């Protein structure tokens, strides 16, 4: 499976990474190189094998329903590039 520059453009959009046409073109062979290499996994017989999603053999712990966090607005906003009146500010979104 190889990618076209159209697909690369699409992925860059999905990933919200701006790229010039030149960068997109340069990525095509790079990505194809890597994708071609990882494709060797198709050689492996994985019939009947469950995908491994959790590396440790442990049950998911549930925590108690108590309020233990919050009321830290100043800390939450401290590193914000743009904060106003207690909100994060972003370029206006038209819905």
């Amino acid at each position: 499976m190889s990618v076209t520059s159209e697909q690369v453009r699409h992925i860059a959009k999905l990933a919200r990474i701006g790229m010039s046409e030149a960068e997109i073109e340069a990525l095509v062979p790079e990505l194809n190189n890597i994708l071609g290499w990882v494709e060797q996994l198709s050689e492996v017989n994985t019939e009947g094998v469950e995908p491994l999603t959790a590396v440790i053999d442990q049950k998911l712990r549930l925590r108690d329903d108590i309020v233990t966090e919050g009321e830290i607005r100043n800390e939450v906003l401290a590193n914000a590039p743009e904060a106003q009146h207690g909100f994060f500010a972003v370029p206006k979104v038209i819905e």
Partner: protein
Amino acid sequence: MVAVAELAAPFRIKGETGDWEVVVGLEVHAQIVSNAKLFSGAATAFGAEPNTQVSLIDAAMPGMLPVPNSACIRQAVRTGIALDAKINRWSRFDRKNYFYADLPQGYQISQLYHPLVGEGEIEILADEKDLSTAKRIGIERIHVEQDAGKLMHDQHPTLSYVDLNRCGVALMEIVSRPDMRSPAEAGAYLRKLRSILRYVGSCDGNMEEGSMRADVNVSVRKPGAGFGTRTETKNVNSVRFVMAVVEHEAKRQVELLESGGEVAQETRLFDPDKGVTRSLRSKEDAHDYRYFPDPDLLPLELDDGFLEECRSSLPELPDAKQKRYQQLGITPYNASVLTAEVETALWFDALLNAGAEPKQASNWVVAELFGALNRRGESIDHSPVTPAAASELLGLVANGTISGTIAKQVFEIMLESGEGAAHIVESRGLKQTSDTGAIDAEIDKILAANADKVEQYKGGKQQLFGFFVGQTMKAMAGKANPQVVNERLREKLGA
């Protein structure tokens, strides 16, 4: 043999090329009642100052990790049990990846591949007064997921403001099967679902505040054909609007198809002011959410003890309560009205527990109490008359102390003054009389004064009997026992 009522005619959109059937599925997002959020310990209460109920996890700071809240899981399981659904002991969280300013992580933790709850169903009555409209609507699944934050666009000319207070609050997404076939069915489903959630206590069902919202999936087809392409109208926040969306979308699609167009599979928004749905700016890649199991979490496994506790913690649910009321002699209509909202049902249960006779009590609540509450603009939670006080009033009627007519008067006085029924009857001398002597005396006067009508009655005009009853009751200021009046009149008129 009892005549079977004709089935109500199925809902159809009348188009130029014939009748069209509408197919509806609803995805309801219900905020789970809990103190803290699904994966963070920040508070969930509505209406706080912006970004004060936000933890480092909610703000998606680098290195932050989710830890699930047991109460949220419990409420979703209880809801599933209440919907007769299969509870999946093993389920898993997946990430739904997309970019938006109200989604700090750049993904929502949800459950796609293995949801917490599987298939279930709800019984609805599309028309409260028509039992033949009873129907089972299937539930496809319920899963648990994070809510997003809030974006505000009108505070600033060039900026939008982001408030993450709501971000991370637990949601149940309840997905129905596409079993509904009319706006009425959609409305009935949503009402019933909301009622059940409020009975269970897992969601407050407050659609205006946004704690419950519906995505409405609508498609049309000629009866008997396969499913057509559906559209999804998102975030509809009232039952009325949901019904309007179904109607409007179905009509729009029929018109489109009949004029040679195709229905696009797209997301739409409802504009309640204009009463129309409109297409959201097309986001081709918005659908590629690249779901994958969240590697910050392990699979969720529930044990027998947990499930048993959930099950035994459930109150009597609307359908069961309705059946029980009917077994007590309450009419199906009354039973359905009384169990529609949990507050009403609990109030009525208290009334029964105070000793009221079920049939009489149900009639009185539906006719008299509801009427009074509506007039006064009060909810049953704030009823000036308690179940115990109501029971006392009903008891006075049942044991003949007062007539039904007088009871209405007494009730009005109870509402205004807060006094008890027996006290009112006593202090205002409202007891009804069954004294045949006094009644006979009045009847004789009435009959004497209306000799012509007596003649007409004896000549065949049966309906005049009511006139005589009315006159007698009036003469006795409503305090005569109506049964005795009837008996004595019959005897005297020789009927």
